[in-house]
């Protein structure tokens, strides 16, 4: 009954607001008229009577306010009113509004971006059904490579997996009738799609029943994305025969959209059966049969769902039992292994934990940034509330309730936070979209599925509201304590706290963090700049790379070295070319191949007896010259170092030192490889960087490509010609030799992007964080300085009137803020220098002991302090003591 009446009144209030308002006004007017009538009868004039009646009535605004409250439907009413009022107030102080909105936009935007990444990468990494019990097998931590026969044994002997699938990555040449193109391929076991429970979008997928031995299943399943971009969504593609590395393959289906394979970041173009590995990888043309070699571990990953009720621990025990069986049965090929299980998306424990830790750390950092931003905005709001204490007091005196005033302050805070959140979200959605389609490497199909979804929008909204309430509540105590009578009479109380407050500590911490970030980003930038000019063991400038895989055009056997020589000679004919070299895989691209090295005296060539693991490269005679690798002693190769002549090698200085003791001792000596080959050292070259820029010197050996054939060939063409013209000329030369050979061309400088990627990313994220930190420090100092200035305005006015100099006023106004800034900066600088030791592992040649860096940090912090205190200082100095004293 009551509820009904309330609801009726509420709806009436909402829909007939103005009518009710009119009625109320009329009723109150009528009251005053009646009273005036009475007073008039007592002998007052009409005007006098009305005035008296109005005075007797009391605070009309307050009673109206209370009446509206009594009428119900206040909430939305008040909200609209408060919002309107707040907008008006905010428009009056654009500097404050913009500072607050930008601060929040950055802080909330940062949170939304990091949350988007967390959401895309950690919360739902692989887009496959029942992902939570999908595991990959690790042979050792961070390495899941198995040989194919071992995979088959593990697949058939385990009792823990609901089917065990395997796949490996490869690059192949696809010819659909036009020019052949290079494409990234997943070679998958027949049961791959069934184990993952993937249904086709079109046609059918590969099944275990397709496998009938090596090369028996020449089928292709396209990814949805590749079908979309390269086949224009043509549904008739199923059944079409295409050429893969010159072998006919039939397209049998298209995988569903949103399935990018089972490795994060790397999305293949299509899937082919693992049993056709020979044709896809080109091992067939070299005469080796990888499907039957138990000692060669090349199957990238084995994965499957654990059976219902099987705990990971039991599955590991099961796997290790198979491992000891393999060790016993095949002692020549299989050593002792300790199997492990890991989540497959980030290649087990190699990428997963560090990435998860990184993103979680980022999330924490972003949350901290937002918290600190809220604290700063809280101070800023408190400063404003102090400035407005007269206004608040007036409103209180005119009959506004305290709750009402608090509510309007909170509305103001929420308006700001929603605006900030809106801008932040807008920016972060754009950034996430950019990240999703980002292709930093020309030759890798990178896939970062972090597009913003409902989760991200929800998170941003919640963050905005929570932070609005957080910083909006800071001035509450202040408002509750306001005594309107005191303030209207005497002006804002000039209390100046001298003790160290939590807010001071927070500010020092913020400045310190900001200084740490600024220091580390400067260190990183300097390191990055220096590493671009450091010694890689080759000269990337003025060199063009052409990467081809001769297997894509079916070269093998004797035809392979002949074709490689023809290509080298044809490149040498291009005008302006100084030298041309060939290497199977350029250093600093991926990890390169490695091989175990044994001393010449070693008889038992088991893995335990090796003296070192060395990088191994197969190169042409002219490679060292073309690459700019300096020969320290001996000779390089000649065209006579072919398969009929003794096996020779050129090694780097580290190899010589590690195996033979010194470069001088190494010349002319012999060593052995795991396959029993005995090699003589004929030359020694300088050390270089092979797997990563930050690595310690590691041994490397170079062998003649005529003695160690490889279909993968990178041509290094050294020339001072314009890269574009040179690339065009090189492509034409290749076309003239074989039109069906796809090639990838780029300058060597550009190829180094991959190696420099981690340090670039580190520098970029440190820069972004540094900017965030600077923004926080600025708003923090600004809020504090503004607060202290506005609290002591009266004092400054008196001091100026008494003849204080500007300098003294400034010192009084900003001394504390500057002291905190100096303290925080010093602490941050020291911490930053310590933290930079860690940086050195990511950014090559990063060192904090660099006068330029130190100077730059100091300058940055001073500039930051200037920017933050400019407005408050200006305000303190431009005081007009007369006006101020009169007003107060």
């Amino acid at each position: 009954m009551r509820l009904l009446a309330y609801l009726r009144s509420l709806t009436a209030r909402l829909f007939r607001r103005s009518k009710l308002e009119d009625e109320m006004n009329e009723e109150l007017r009528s009251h005053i008229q009646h009273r005036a009538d009475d007073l008039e009868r007592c002998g007052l004039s009409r005007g006098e009577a009305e005035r008296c009646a109005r005075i007797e009535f009391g605070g009309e605004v307050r009673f109206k306010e209370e009446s509206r409250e009594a009428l119900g439907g206040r909430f939305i009413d008040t909200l609209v009113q408060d919002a309107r009022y707040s907008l008006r107030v905010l428009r009056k102080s654009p500097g404050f509004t913009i500072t607050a909105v930008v601060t929040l936009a950055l802080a909330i935007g940062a949170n939304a971006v990091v949350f988007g990444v967390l959401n895309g990468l950690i919360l739902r990494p692989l887009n496959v059904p029942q992902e939570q019990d999908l595991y990959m097998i690790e042979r050792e931590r961070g390495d899941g490579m198995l040989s194919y026969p071992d995979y088959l044994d593990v697949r058939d002997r385990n009792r823990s997996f609901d089917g065990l699938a395997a796949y490996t990555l490869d690059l192949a040449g696809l010819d659909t009738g036009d020019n052949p193109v290079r494409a990234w391929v997943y070679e998958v076991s027949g049961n791959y799609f069934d184990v993952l429970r993937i249904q086709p979008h079109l046609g059918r997928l590969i099944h275990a029943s397709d496998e009938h031995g090596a090369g028996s299943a020449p089928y292709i399943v396209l990814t949805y994305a590749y079908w979309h971009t390269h086949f224009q969504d043509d549904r008739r593609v199923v059944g079409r025969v295409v050429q893969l590395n010159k072998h006919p393959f039939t397209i049998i289906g298209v995988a569903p959209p949103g399935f990018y394979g089972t490795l994060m970041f790397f999305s293949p173009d299509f899937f082919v059966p693992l049993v056709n590995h020979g044709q896809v990888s080109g091992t067939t043309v070299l005469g080796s049969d990888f499907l039957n070699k138990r000692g060669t571990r090349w199957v990238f990953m084995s994965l499957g769902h654990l059976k219902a009720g099987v705990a990971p621990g039991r599955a590991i025990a099961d796997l290790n039992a198979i491992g000891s069986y393999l060790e016993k049965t095949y002692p020549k090929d299989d050593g002792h292994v300790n199997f492990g299980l890991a989540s497959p998306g980030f290649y087990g424990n190699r990428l997963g934990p560090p990435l998860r830790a990184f993103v979680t750390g980022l999330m924490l950092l972003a949350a901290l940034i937002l918290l600190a931003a809220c604290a700063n905005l809280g101070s800023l709001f408190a400063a404003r509330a102090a400035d407005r204490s007269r206004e608040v007091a007036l409103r209180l005196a005119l009959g506004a309730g305290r709750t009402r005033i608090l509510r309007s302050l909170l509305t103001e805070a929420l308006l700001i936070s929603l605006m900030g959140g809106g801008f932040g979200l807008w920016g972060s959605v754009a950034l996430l979209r950019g990240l999703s389609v980002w292709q930093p490497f020309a030759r890798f199909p990178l896939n970062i599925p972090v597009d913003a979804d409902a989760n991200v929008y929800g998170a941003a909204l919640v963050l905005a509201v929570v932070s609005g309430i957080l910083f909006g509540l800071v001035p509450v105590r202040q408002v509750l304590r306001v005594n309107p009578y005191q303030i209207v009479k005497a002006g804002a109380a000039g209390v100046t706290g001298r003790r160290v407050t939590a807010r001071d500590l927070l500010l020092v911490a913020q400045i310190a963090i900001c200084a740490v970030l600024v220091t580390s980003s400067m260190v990183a930038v300097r390191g990055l700049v220096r590493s671009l000019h450091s010694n890689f063991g080759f000269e990337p400038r003025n060199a063009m790379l052409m990467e081809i895989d001769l297997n894509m055009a079916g070269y093998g056997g004797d035809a392979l070295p002949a074709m490689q020589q023809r290509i080298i000679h044809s490149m040498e004919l291009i005008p302006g070319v100084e030298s041309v070299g060939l290497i199977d895989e350029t250093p600093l691209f991926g990890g390169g191949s490695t091989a175990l090295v044994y001393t010449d005296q070693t008889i038992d060539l088991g893995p335990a007896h090796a003296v070192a693991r060395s990088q191994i490269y197969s190169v042409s005679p002219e490679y060292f010259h073309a690459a700019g690798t300096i020969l320290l002693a001996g000779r390089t190769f000649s065209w006579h170092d072919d398969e009929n002549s003794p096996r020779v090698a050129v090694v780097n200085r580290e190899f010589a030192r590690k195996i033979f003791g010194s470069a001088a001792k190494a010349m002319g000596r012999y060593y052995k490889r795991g396959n029993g080959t005995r090699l003589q050292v004929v030359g020694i070259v300088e050390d270089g960087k092979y797997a990563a820029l930050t690595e310690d010197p590691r041994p490397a050996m170079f062998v003649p490509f005529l003695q160690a054939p490889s279909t993968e060939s990178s041509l290094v063409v050294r020339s001072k010609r314009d890269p574009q013209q040179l690339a065009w000329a090189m492509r034409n030369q290749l076309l003239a030799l074989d039109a069906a050979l796809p090639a990838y061309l780029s300058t060597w400088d550009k190829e180094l992007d991959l190696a420099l990627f981690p340090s670039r990313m580190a520098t970029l994220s440190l820069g972004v964080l540094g900017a965030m930190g600077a923004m926080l420090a600025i708003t923090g100092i600004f809020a504090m300085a503004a607060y202290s200035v506005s609290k002591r305005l009266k004092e400054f006015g008196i001091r100026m009137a008494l003849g204080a100099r500007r300098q003294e006023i400034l010192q009084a106004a900003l001394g504390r803020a500057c002291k905190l800034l100096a303290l925080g900066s010093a602490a941050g600088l020291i911490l930053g220098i310590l933290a930079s030791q860690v940086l050195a592992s990511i950014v090559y040649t990063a060192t904090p002991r660099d006068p330029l860096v130190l100077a730059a940090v100091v300058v940055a912090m001073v500039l930051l302090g200037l920017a933050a205190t400019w407005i408050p200082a200006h305000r303190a100095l431009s005081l007009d003591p007369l006006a101020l004293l009169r007003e107060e």
Partner: protein
Amino acid sequence: MSSQAQLLPGTLDLLILKAVSLGPLHGYGVLLRIGQISGQALLIEQGALYPALFRLVRQGVLKASWGVSENNRRAKFYELTALGRKRLREEADGWNRLAAAMGAALAAHPEEV
């Protein structure tokens, strides 16, 4: 000692109900009636009357309609609803019990204890 007494919190509603129960009244009339029936002993802030009136209307114990006053001015007249009459009875009983109890308590002499 002042001849006027401060209103106890919560008693305004009861006074309004009583005043209106004697016949429909407009706001100013309610004030006059309370003054009259209390012998001018109770002081009510004029403006404070209206929030209370609106609250009572919303609670459904009063109903209001526009009419013309004895001064020939437009005014809003209030009268009791059935619910209002019931409320008045209950609250008056409650008040009387309280007043009697308070009176007895304050009239107690030491020898009675």
